[in-house]
C-alpha cells in the first residue's frame, strides 16, 4: 500500500506501523515507550504524528499504515503536542538529572563522579574527572566560596559533603602536586593569544593546550596569576599553591609574555594578525580601552554572546571579569573553558558555535523521609573536619571517608535518558504543569545490580513486558490504576527475586533513569552493558 509521510510517498506492506513507514522515508520520530520487538500499549504519545486526511493525532509507534494516508511527522502543531506530552510526564517525574551540587557549580563540575572515585581511593581518576571542567582545582580549593556545598541535598538534613576540600585532595597529595599526566591532543598547528593570566585566561589556556593548540599568554604584570596574585589575601591562597598550578599550565607548553601590555596597536597589528584566535581575559578594564579595541560594550564590560563568549569581531572572544565585574573565580574558570571551546570550534569551522544547555529535571528540597531513602548505600557519618586543619586539608584516608558520604543524587542515566533528551530537544519546561504536592521519592537499592527509583518512571511498562518475556518467576507488575499506577514487584518480593534474569535488559530498555545500573560511571564497570 502507498501513503505519504511528510509529502514523501512510501510503499509498505500491510501491518507496517507509521513509525516504520517513516523510517523507510528516512524520517526519525521520537518515542519513549516504544521498543522494537515488543508488543505493548502505546502510552507516552511523544511519537504522535498527524493524519492530515482525517485531522487526527495518532501514535505512530503502533498505528498501522493505511492506503492513501497523508501523514505529517513534524510541524509546529506536533512540536507543541510533543512538548506538552513531555511537560505532563515531567510534572510527574521526581528526580534530579544533574545533582544539585553540579547545577550550582558555575563550571558544572561532575562532583558525584569525583566523590565516587575518591571514595574508592582512585585519586588520579578523580583528578582527571575534575580537570574535565576545572583547570585550576588546587587554587579553587582555597578560594572558592563553594556554591556546590550550599546546594548539596545532604545539607538539607545533616551537613553538606565537603566538596571543596575533596577537590583539593585530588590535586594535592600530602601537600605536593599529585603527579597525574594531562593527556594532550596532537598539535593542531594553530595558535591562540590569551590576554590576561588570571583565572579565566589560565583556564582558557589549559583547555586550548589540552586540545593541541599553541597558547601565548600576555600579561602586563611581571608575574602570572592576575587577580589571584594581586587581589586575593595571601593567607587565604598561599603563593606556593598559585605558582604550582600555574606551573602545570607552563609545563603543558604555555608561552608567557609577562610585563607586556597589549594596547590598541598590539591588539590589531599583532594579535589579530598573527594568531588564529584571540581570547581576552584581562579582568575589568576601562571602557575606553575596549572601545579602542573596536569592541562593543555594555554596562558590565565587553558585550559578548553568552552562548559562546564571542565578541562582535569574529575570532575574538572575551571572558572573566572583562564581561562582568567581580565574578566568582570559579565562574571565570568556567568561562575560560567555554571561550576556549568556542575558539576551537571557530578555528576548526570558521563559525562561532551556539551553546547547548542540557535539560535538567529538578525536584527542590529533600524531605527527611526521603533523605533516609536517598542515603541508600552512602555513609551515615557526619561531615569530617580535616584533623590537620583546613589549610592543610584532608589526609587521603579522611578524604575517602568523607567522599563516601555523597548520596549520588544525580541520575544514573544522564546521557541515555530519553525523557531528558527529548525535553531538551523540544524545549519542555518542567514547571509548566506542576503538581501541588510532589510525590515522595523512593529509591530501592536492594538489588545487586539495579537501582529502582519509581518516581522517575513514566509507566510505559516495557520492563513488565520484558520480565514476562524472559520468564521471570515474579517479574515486574503494574500496580493500581490511573494516576496512581506504579511498577512494583508482585507479592512484596524483593527486587532481587523479581529480576533474576531480566535486570540488565530492563535497565537497558527503560527510557528514563527509573531503572538504572548501580555501577556508576567511575566505578568498576564490569557489569556495564
Amino acid at each position, binding site marked *: 500500500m502507498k501513503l505519504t509521510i511528510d509529502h514523501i510517498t512510501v510503499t509498505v506492506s500491510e501491518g507496517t506501523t507509521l513509525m516504520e513507514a517513516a523510517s523507510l522515508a528516512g524520517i526519525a520520530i521520537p518515542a519513549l515507550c516504544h521498543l522494537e520487538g515488543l508488543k505493548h500499549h502505546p502510552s507516552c*504519545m511523544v511519537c504522535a504524528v498527524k493524519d492530515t486526511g482525517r485531522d487526527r493525532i495518532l501514535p505512530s509507534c503502533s498505528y498501522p499504515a493505511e492506503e492513501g494516508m497523508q501523514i505529517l511527522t513534524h510541524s509546529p502543531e506536533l512540536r507543541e503536542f510533543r512538548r506538552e506530552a513531555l511537560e*505532563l510526564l515531567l510534572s510527574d517525574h521526581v528526580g534530579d538529572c544533574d545533582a544539585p551540587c553540579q547545577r550550582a557549580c558555575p563550571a558544572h563540575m561532575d562532583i558525584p563522579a569525583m566523590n565516587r572515585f575518591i571514595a574508592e581511593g582512585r585519586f588520579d581518576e578523580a583528578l582527571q574527572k575534575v580537570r574535565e571542567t576545572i583547570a585550576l582545582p588546587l587554587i579553587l580549593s582555597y578560594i572558592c566560596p563553594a556554591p556546590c556545598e550550599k546546594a548539596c541535598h545532604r545539607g538539607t538534613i545533616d551537613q553538606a559533603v565537603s566538596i571543596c576540600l575533596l577537590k583539593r585532595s585530588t590535586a594535592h597529595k600530602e601537600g605536593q602536586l599529585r603527579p597525574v599526566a594531562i593527556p594532550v591532543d596532537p598539535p593542531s598547528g594553530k595558535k591562540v593569544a590569551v590576554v590576561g593570566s588570571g583565572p579565566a585566561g589560565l583556564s582558557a589556556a589549559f583547555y586550548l593546550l589540552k586540545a593541541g593548540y599553541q597558547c601565548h599568554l600576555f600579561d602586563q604584570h611581571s608575574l602570572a596569576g592576575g587577580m589571584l596574585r594581586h587581589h586575593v589575601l595571601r593567607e587565604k591562597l598561599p603563593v606556593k599553591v598559585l605558582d604550582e598550578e600555574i606551573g602545570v599550565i607552563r609545563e603543558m607548553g604555555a608561552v608567557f609574555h609577562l610585563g607586556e601590555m597589549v594596547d590598541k596597536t598590539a591588539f590589531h597589528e599583532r594579535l589579530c594578525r598573527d594568531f588564529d584566535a584571540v581570547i581576552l581575559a584581562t579582568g575589568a578594564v576601562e571602557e575606553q580601552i575596549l572601545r579602542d579595541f573596536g569592541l562593543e560594550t555594555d554596562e558590565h564590560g565587553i558585550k559578548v554572546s553568552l552562548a559562546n563568549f564571542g565578541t562582535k569581531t569574529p575570532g575574538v572572544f572575551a571572558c572573566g571579569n572583562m564581561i562582568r565585574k567581580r565574578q566568582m573565580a570559579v565562574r571565570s574558570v568556567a568561562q575560560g573553558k567555554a571561550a576556549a571551546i568556542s575558539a576551537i570550534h571557530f578555528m576548526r569551522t570558521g563559525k562561532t558555535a551556539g551553546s547547548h544547555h542540557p535539560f535538567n529535571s529538578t525536584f527542590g528540597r529533600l524531605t527527611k523521609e526521603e533523605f533516609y531513602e536517598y542515603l541508600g548505600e552512602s555513609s551515615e557519618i557526619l561531615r569530617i573536619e580535616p584533623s590537620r586543619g583546613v589549610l592543610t586539608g584532608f589526609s587521603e584516608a579522611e578524604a575517602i571517608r568523607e567522599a563516601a558520604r555523597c548520596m549520588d543524587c544525580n541520575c544514573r542515566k544522564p546521557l541515555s535518558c530519553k525523557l531528558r533528551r527529548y525535553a531538551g530537544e523540544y524545549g519542555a519546561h518542567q514547571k509548566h*504543569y506542576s503538581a501541588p504536592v510532589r510525590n515522595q521519592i523512593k529509591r530501592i537499592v536492594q538489588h545487586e545490580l539495579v537501582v529502582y527509583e519509581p518516581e522517575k518512571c513514566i*509507566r510505559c511498562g516495557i520492563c513488565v513486558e520484558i520480565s*514476562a518475556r524472559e520468564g521471570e518467576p515474579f*517479574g515486574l507488575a*503494574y*500496580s493500581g490504576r490511573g494516576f496512581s*499506577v506504579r511498577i512494583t514487584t508482585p507479592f512484596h518480593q524483593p527486587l532481587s527475586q523479581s529480576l533474576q534474569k531480566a535486570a540488565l535488559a530492563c535497565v537497558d530498555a527503560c527510557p528514563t533513569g527509573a531503572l538504572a545500573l548501580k555501577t556508576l560511571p567511575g566505578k568498576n564497570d564490569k557489569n556495564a552493558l
Partner: protein
Amino acid sequence: MKQDSANRSAIAHKVGAIVASRGTGRDAVIPILQDIQQHYHYLPEEALEEVCRITAITPAQITGVATYYSSFRHEPAGKHTIRVCTGTACHVKGSGQVYEAFRREMKLEGTDNTDAVGIFTLEEVACLGCCTLAPVVKIDEVTYGHVKPENVGDILRDFLSRVKRSSDQPAKTGGNRGIIQGEIRIGLGSCCMASGSSEVKEELERTLAETSIHAEVRQVGCVGICNQVPILEIVKPGEPSAFYAHIRPEEVRQVVLNHFRPTTFHHRLKNRIDGILDEMLGNGAPPSFRRYLTEQRDTPLTRFLGPQLSIATECRGELKPCDIEAYRQSGGFEALEKALFHMTSYEVINEIRNSGLRGRGGAGFPTGIKWQLVKEQPSPLKYVICNGDEGDPGAFMDRMLLESYPFRIIEGMLIAGYATGASQGIFYIRAEYPLAVTRIREALQICEREGITGHNILSSSFSFNIRIFEGAGAFVCGEETALISSIEGRRGIPALRPPYPAVEGLYHKPTLINNTETLAVISRIIRYGADSFSSIGTTGSKGTKVFALAGKVKHGGLIEVPMGTTIHQIVMEIGGGIAGNRSFKAVQIGGPSGGCLPAVLSHLPIDYEALSEAGAMMGSGGMVVLDDTDCMVDLAWYFLSFTQDQSCGQCTFCRVGTRRMLDLLEKIRGGQGTNDDLVNLENLALAVRKGSFCGLGKTAPNPVLTTLRYFRHEYEAHLRGECPAGKCSLMITYAVTENCIGCTKCAQRCPSGAIAFKPYEIHHIDTEKCTRCDICRQVCPVQAVILK
C-alpha cells in the same frame, strides 16, 4: 507457626475449590478473584500466591489485575460494608457531606476506612444506579435513600437491628387459591427494593395468607416512576387501577382490606384518593404521610407518562421480570421465531439497518453496519457481547433494562447472534448491579430449559450459548477493547483500533459488542418491521432513547422518549419541573463524557448530532437536572474527578493530563485560582481531548469545556473568590441570623463544636471550627442558618 501453616492449608483448600469451578486459564483470573473476595471479604496475599501456584496465572498478572479493578480489596474489611454512592445525582444532593458524616460517626482517622472494632468498612462507590433516591447509601444488601448527614447514626443503628432480626423467617403465602379476585402488582426494581418494596411484598403475602384473599401478587420490573416508590398497583376487573405510592409495610393490610372487601370501603377510599391526588404529585419532596394516586386524565402522572414511548421498556410495569409466560404473552420471542424461520441473516441485518438504529452506548455507530461487518468475517467462531458495564455516575438505564426485561435483551442477543453468525454470547454486567446479574442468570436458566438458548434453538439449526461475566469495577471497561481485555483476564486497558473488535475481538475472534439498550429494541424492530422504528425520531436519530432522569426535577425516574423530544419537554413535562421552587439552570447530559447545557438551550431535541454540536453527548443516557443552587465549577470538578479516578493510567494525556486539570480546578474551586490557571486549564483540556488514546480520555474534558463555554462567568467569579451558587465549601461560611430562637438544636448536632450551646440566645458559628457539614442548616426549625 503451627496456626500459620494450618491457616495456609485452609486457604489452599478454599482456593483449590474455587479454581476447580472457575478453571486454570489466564482468563479465569477475575472470576477467581471475585470468588476469593466473596469468601474472605478481601484478597489475602497467600490466596493469590496459591492461585499462581496451581494455575497458568502469573504473579505479575494477578497483581496487575487485582490492583486495577476497584471492587477488589487488599486489606481485611469490617463485617459490613457501607457504600456511599457518589454518582452525579447523589453528588448534587450532598453525598460528600454524607460520606464525611459517616467518617465522623465511625470515628475514622487519616486513611482508615474500617472502624476500630471492625464492624463497618466505609467505601465510596461510583454509582449504585438509584439516582432518584439520592443521596443513596448501601450497607451490604440494604439500601438507604434520601440520606442526610444528620441521620447516619440512625442508619447504622437501624442496619444493626435488621441484622439482629434477620433470623426471623418471613411469612409464607399459603392456602388454596380459589377464584382470583384481582391482581396486586409490586415493583421490584433496585429503586423499589431500596425503598422497601421487598418488605411491602412480604407483608402483602402475609396479609393475603392470613385473610385468604385470593389476589394474585405480580412482581413487575421497574415502573419508571422511581421517586414515588415503592408503588403498589391494584388491578381489579372492571375498575381503574389504583396506585399507592410510597407505601409502607404497616399500611399494606389496610390497603388490601379496603380493596378486597365490600365496595363501600373502596368508594370511601377512592374519594379520598381523588381529593389528595394533586397535592401528592405536586410536591417532589419526600412525603411525610401517605399519598395515593390513581389513573386519571391530566394529572402529573399522565404528564409523566404522556410524552413517553415504550419500546425498550415495552410493557413497563406489567411484566414480572423472570416470568417467561408473561413475556411470551406480550409478544416475546415472536421476533426470534420470525428471524429464525422466516428471514435470512442478511434480511435481519437489512431490517436493522433500515430501522436507522444507532448504538445506544454513546457514540451512535449505526448498528446494522456493525452487524454487517461481523457477518462478513469468515471465522467459524464469533461472539456477541451485551455491554452492561454501565458506569456513568447518574445513569441506570442498563440496570433497569437488565433487571426488568431480561428476556427481551436475551432475545435481542439471540437475533444478533443469528444475524452475524455468532455462536457465543456474553453478558458483561457491572459489579455494582447484583440484582441484574441474578435476574439475567435466572432468565438464562429458564431459556436453556425452554430450548431458547443452547443447541438447535426452537428446533432450528441455530445454536447459541450465553454466559455472564461480572465486571470488577472499572468505568473504562465500557470501552469495547477494554471490556475484551477484562474478559480475557487482563487489566481493562483500551487497545489500539484497528483491528476493530468486529474483525478481531475477544480471543482474536470477530466480536459484536452492543449496548444493553441497543439489544433491548431489536425484537421490536424485527417484530413490527424497520418502518415502525424509523418512523419515530429525527432525520439522523431514529426510535426512542431511554434516559435516567434525576437531579433537581420533581419526578425523576427512568424514562423512554422518542428521539426529537426536547430537553424542555423532558424536564418540565415529564419531570414536572424543578423541585423546591428553585429555578432551572442546566441539564447535564451524557455523564462524565457529556456536557452541561444551559436552560436557554432546552429547546434542543434529543438527537445525536444536535447534542454533539452543543458540546454535550447522547452518552449512555444519564440526564441530571441542575438548579440555581448548583455550582458549575463544582460540577466540572466532580465529573473530572470521576474520570481522573477511572483513567486506566496508560497514556500520558489521560493519566497525567486529567490529573493536572483537576489540580487546576481544585485551585480555582478553592478560591486560589488565577487568570493564568484558567488559560492553562482550557489549553490543557484541548490537549487532553486531542492526545488521549481512547474515548474516556478524549471526552473527559467535555464537562470542563462545556461549562467554560456556557458558564465562564462562574469560573471568573471563583477567580475573584466568590462561588455564586454557594456550593464550594472552601469559599462559603455559615452564619446564624436574628431569626434564631435559641432552640440549641444546631449546637447539639454540630459535630465539630463550632456552635456554643446557649439556650434562648442567638447562636453563633465559629468559622474556624466549622467543617461546612451543613447539618446546622438542615436541623434549624426556623431557617435561621444561612450561607454567606
